[in-house]
């Protein structure tokens, strides 16, 4: 068993934190991942979004070399997870999506065990993290709630001094206060240059934490970009209250408006393109009030799904 290299070589220092090319993972007839291409820059928080069964955990487990890809190439911190696994895993911290901890151990015992495997952990930082997460490490893991067990995993990840945190559904079971604390930890880690690959189906969490996002559906990436870009791709909800009857025919002729609804003097639709044509129509008619709702990421997300399916 070799020691993890504490200092990276110049050849890997300039590489992206993650580079996935044509990743495919099949389980017999089941195609879990169908050809993913992805690049995560060093020092960014990258959101990996998708519902259960989209292939997020499968992709992540390939990064850790827990699964062997059917096809494709993976580079993590410039290294091959299979060939350089020992060195690489010394520079990565991971929170599994399906978290199962040794039940008979206490939190302290587990942290100490992982510390011995990783070559030591900072005791002062451990106390600080336990305090921030309101976590009692002296209790047996089997006696902890699922949320508190998740906190143990969060503590281990942020205690590790890893260059890359791979977090699979890290806030599952955490209460809102702890989710907030988790996001603070993510921001603090990013400020110190740590790269964070954050898989989640909790859109608000990714929206608040991530610089860029990839949306996964049925093993394929259906969208990729910054949070703002994704939001921009989604359809905005438009509502207009006219003084008189809405100009239904003129509005119906606008291809950027979908799902149009006219009820009395009220008009509602989804805007799937530039707003200028709508404004030109509205300028010719007396308008009492108007509302354009910017979509949140959740709507963008659902939109992308509908489009992809």
């Amino acid at each position: 068993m070799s020691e993890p290299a504490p200092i990276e070589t110049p050849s890997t220092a300039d590489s992206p934190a993650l580079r996935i090319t044509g990743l495919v993972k099949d389980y017999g007839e089941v195609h879990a991942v169908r050809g993913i291409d992805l690049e995560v820059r060093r020092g960014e928080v990258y959101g990996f979004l998708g519902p259960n069964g989209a292939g997020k955990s499968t992709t992540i487990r390939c990064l850790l070399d827990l699964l062997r890809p059917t096809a494709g190439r993976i580079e993590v911190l410039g290294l091959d997870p299979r060939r350089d696994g020992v060195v690489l895993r010394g520079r990565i911290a991971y929170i599994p999506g399906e978290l199962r901890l040794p039940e008979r151990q206490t939190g302290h015992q587990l942290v100490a065990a992982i510390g011995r495997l990783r070559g030591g952990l900072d005791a002062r930082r451990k106390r600080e993290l336990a305090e921030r997460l309101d976590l009692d490490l002296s209790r047996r893991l089997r006696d902890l709630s699922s949320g508190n067990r998740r906190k143990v995993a969060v503590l281990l990840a942020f205690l590790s001094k890893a260059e890359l945190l791979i977090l699979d559904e890290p806030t599952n079971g955490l209460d809102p206060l702890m989710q907030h604390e988790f996001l603070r930890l993510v921001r603090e880690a990013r400020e110190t240059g740590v790269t964070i690959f954050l898989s989640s189906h909790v859109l608000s969490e990714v929206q608040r934490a991530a610089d860029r996002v990839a949306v996964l559906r049925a093993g394929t990436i259906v969208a990729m970009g910054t949070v703002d870009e994704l939001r921009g791709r989604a359809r905005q909800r438009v509502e207009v209250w006219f003084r008189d009857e809405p100009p239904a025919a003129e509005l119906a002729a606008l291809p950027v408006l979908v799902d149009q609804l006219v009820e009395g003097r009220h008009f509602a639709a989804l805007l799937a393109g530039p707003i200028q044509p709508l404004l030109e129509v509205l300028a010719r008619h007396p308008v009492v009030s108007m509302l354009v709702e910017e979509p949140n990421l959740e709507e963008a997300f659902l939109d992308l799904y509908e489009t992809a399916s």
Partner: protein
Amino acid sequence: MNAAGRWAELVFGPLRSSWRASLGWAIAFVLLIVSTVAFWPVFKGSAALAQAFEVVPQGLLKAFGFQDFTSPAGYLRGGLYEIIVPLMFAAAGVMFANSLIAADEDAGRLELFLAQPLTRRAFLAARGLSVVGWLAVLGIVVLVSQLASDTAFDLQIADARVVETVVLCSLLGAFYAGLAVAIAGLLARPGLVLSVGLSLALVGYLVAALFPLSEVLAPWRQISPWAWALGGDPLVNAAEPWRYAALAVPALGLALLGIVAFGRRDIRSA
């Protein structure tokens, strides 16, 4: 922290978490041995019992280890070391290996550990050593309780014969543990590891015990690990060195097969 520290954690960590199961096995062994030897004074030199056994065919007596039952070696063989103790060692070996490898993987408990800076092969090798460690502890428990019971109940047998017999039984357990490691390395199926491991242990006994009753099958008795371990009647005769190797080498080979397979396949998640 160096590689030795990691190895220590990998080997002793599972020992710490599975001590309750081992304590259960140890208590079962002690109770079995003490309660069996406690009745030795009743059977010692019993002419009536010897006469009763005379009407039973010798082949059948040998199949169950009851030949010469009124002698110290015969009593220990028939009461403990022909079937029950070796079978318990085999079952303990299979169950320890299953619990620390296949069951842990099936439950998703390996994921966090395999994400640490170590190779899968080192991880599985360490778990195998943990299994060997528990079998060694059980061997010592059996040996100490046997020697103490012999003294307490005046069962006169050479300590060397007891030591060799217990070591061979422990190695039989290691053989079946190696088999379980091989299956667990190939597949994360705890039900399969248990059923195949325990079934083969039982088949091994039946082959060693019953094949000699048939002239046709008798030569095939030697395919059984039970014959390698106990075929020389170690409570009576000094065991040949090859018997130890015949158990230890395949155990190691099977474990290596499991370790190599474990390094090549996908790890199962919860």
